[in-house]
């Protein structure tokens, strides 16, 4: 707890959906419903889970775009809720974000220079006279050179990968301590993705940044992040060191995610077929009682439908499941069946 740079404690973010004419009194969307996380200095933490499970909502709450409904955010040992306006401003400066869509995250009417200079001006990072030199330095840092030639260009003159570099330059401009990357490489092609990931890893090391890397692509997590938190319907169902979680997942959902992730190797891919989750993710406005995963869980028991499981330590990770060992039993059975055939 002590060396945590950022701690999220029991965070809840509910969206009030103003019941329109036809859906008067609809339930609030419980986008994030009791999430606790911890980010250490210099750590690369992955946040994974399916669409709508609340990943972006956590990110938006951390950078102040959305107000939390309940829970605490603790930065460098202090509760952000009690910050003075000045401290809050400092906190905002320290947490920056890179978005998914490189075609939507740059103002089409602003030049590269004025986009990157904006945070520098607002937070008075460098004196006015050094603005240009600083922007050039940032562009060089993200691998856009010759930087001078790029300053006056507009976003439409860049490719997706280059735009994402510009976004990263803007994010590191205010000298943050934490970078949140929300699906920052999901829209990019494999070859460009590798370029951006390389840049991201290099910068986080050089600038000693902690970062939360939001993605639904487990293969990126495996190679990039030391630790991972798996979310399902607004809650964390498993978290721990990436190596552990990937090799010995404890929660059935983590398992299902891993099984469903394609592997670019015909021999491996074909030998592990056969495990599929049934059905769709339920609505976060009306999540199932008990364990939220029980409607799709292949090993659910009656207890799962009534009692919500808490996160607890199991074999070096933390998982929220009543029957983590249930998995190994079914697996043994199917192995045995295979052996018979």
């Amino acid at each position: 707890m002590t060396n945590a740079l950022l701690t999220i404690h029991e965070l809840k973010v509910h969206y009030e959906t103003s019941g329109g004419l036809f859906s008067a009194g609809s339930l609030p969307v419980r986008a994030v419903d009791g999430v606790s996380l911890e980010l250490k200095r210099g750590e690369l933490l992955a946040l994974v889970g399916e669409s709508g499970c609340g990943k972006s909502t956590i990110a938006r709450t951390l950078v102040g775009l959305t107000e939390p409904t309940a829970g605490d955010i603790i930065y460098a040992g202090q509760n952000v809720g009690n910050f003075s306006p000045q401290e809050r401003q400092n906190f905002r400066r320290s947490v920056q974000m890179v978005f998914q869509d490189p075609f939507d995250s740059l103002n089409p009417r602003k030049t590269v220079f004025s986009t990157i200079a904006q945070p520098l001006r607002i937070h008075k990072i460098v004196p006015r006279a050094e603005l240009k030199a600083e922007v050039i330095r940032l562009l060089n840092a993200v691998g856009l050179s010759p930087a001078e030639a790029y300053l006056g260009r507009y976003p439409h003159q860049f490719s997706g990968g280059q735009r994402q570099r510009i976004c990263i330059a803007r994010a590191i401009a205010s000298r943050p301590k934490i970078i949140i990357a929300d699906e920052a490489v999901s829209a990019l092609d494999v070859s460009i993705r590798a370029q951006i990931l390389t840049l991201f890893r290099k910068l986080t090391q050089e600038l000693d940044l902690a970062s939360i890397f939001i993605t639904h692509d487990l293969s990126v997590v495996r190679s990039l992040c030391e630790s991972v938190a798996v979310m399902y319907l607004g809650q964390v169902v498993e978290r721990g060191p990436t190596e552990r979680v990937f090799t010995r997942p404890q929660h059935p959902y983590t398992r299902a995610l891993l099984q469903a992730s394609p592997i670019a190797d015909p021999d491996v891919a074909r030998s592990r077929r056969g495990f599929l989750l049934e059905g769709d993710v339920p609505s976060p406005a009306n999540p199932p009682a008990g364990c939220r995963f029980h409607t799709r869980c292949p090993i659910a028991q009656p207890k799962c439908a009534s009692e919500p499981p808490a996160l607890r330590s199991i074999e070096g990770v933390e998982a929220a499941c009543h029957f983590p060992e249930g998995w190994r039993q079914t697996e043994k059975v199917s192995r045995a069946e295979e052996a018979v055939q």
Partner: protein
Amino acid sequence: MTDVLRIDDLTMHLETELGTVRAVENLSLRVDEGEAVALVGESGCGKSMTALSIMRLLPPYARFRSGSIRVAGKDLVTAPERAMRQIRGGTIGMIFQDPLTFLNPLRQVGEQIAEAVRLHTGAGRVEADAQALEALRRVRIADAENVVHNYPHQLSGGMRQRVLIAIAVACRPSLLICDEPTTALDVTIQAQIMELIDNLRHELGTAVLLITHDLGLVAQYCSRVYVMYAGQVVEDAGVREIFQHPRHPYTQALLQSSLRPDRVSEDFAVIDGQPPQLLAPPPGCRFHPRCPRVFDPCPSAMPGLDRAGEGRAMVRCHLEEAHQ
């Protein structure tokens, strides 16, 4: 084995205001009965344009410059529009990345499937409705009796994709073209849809042309692969051959830079530079500005797609030519 689709030396250009987009160039491709074939490549390399050429659903300013697309004895390049209507949805079914744009928001999904059936089989109303229900069951929609009466917006993304598949296979096509069918879906839903497509292939004997940029899906579901780069096929080989002995430098780089959930890659192998613009593709080998093994002939001469080694693989690279 007989082929259900055979494209020979197809060149298709888009004559836009900004100039000629060389979307498909000298492309040859074959899909055999009941086979699953992949067309992989990065964004903008011409995968969708190839699929749309087969279906002849191209923008009005598209021009076929050479080659043929043979399906069931007809050349689709020259076939009259009337014949195309029978091919689309009849002989060839197609599903797309974004199902919502291909479903009518104002009509129940059952009706939409039944209409496709009536159009192609001349079945009566009652018969078509029964087939629509049957089609929904075939794509494993639980509770199909109710879902036939739903409107597209009432369904989840995965369900919509199932409905689109139901429409596509309702008339038992001999080929199903899937253009990034799961890109918009979650991994667990993606796995469901891919399993479904694969099962239908076995059940109905429908050949599948899977267009994707995900090498993982290719490895899992396809038996042959065409790798596309800048409007051209650069490698054509069996799936094991491609993954174990990629021959084209682009295929090699692509495989190296693709990450795996079951393995840690210490550094992300990187292909420098950007994919080329098809408005003004580089001369010579299209890949030469990014190729780590570029040598003398590459910048000036375009390599042909030639048989490489002893296997069946075809490669478009001067290195292979040099070997022979």
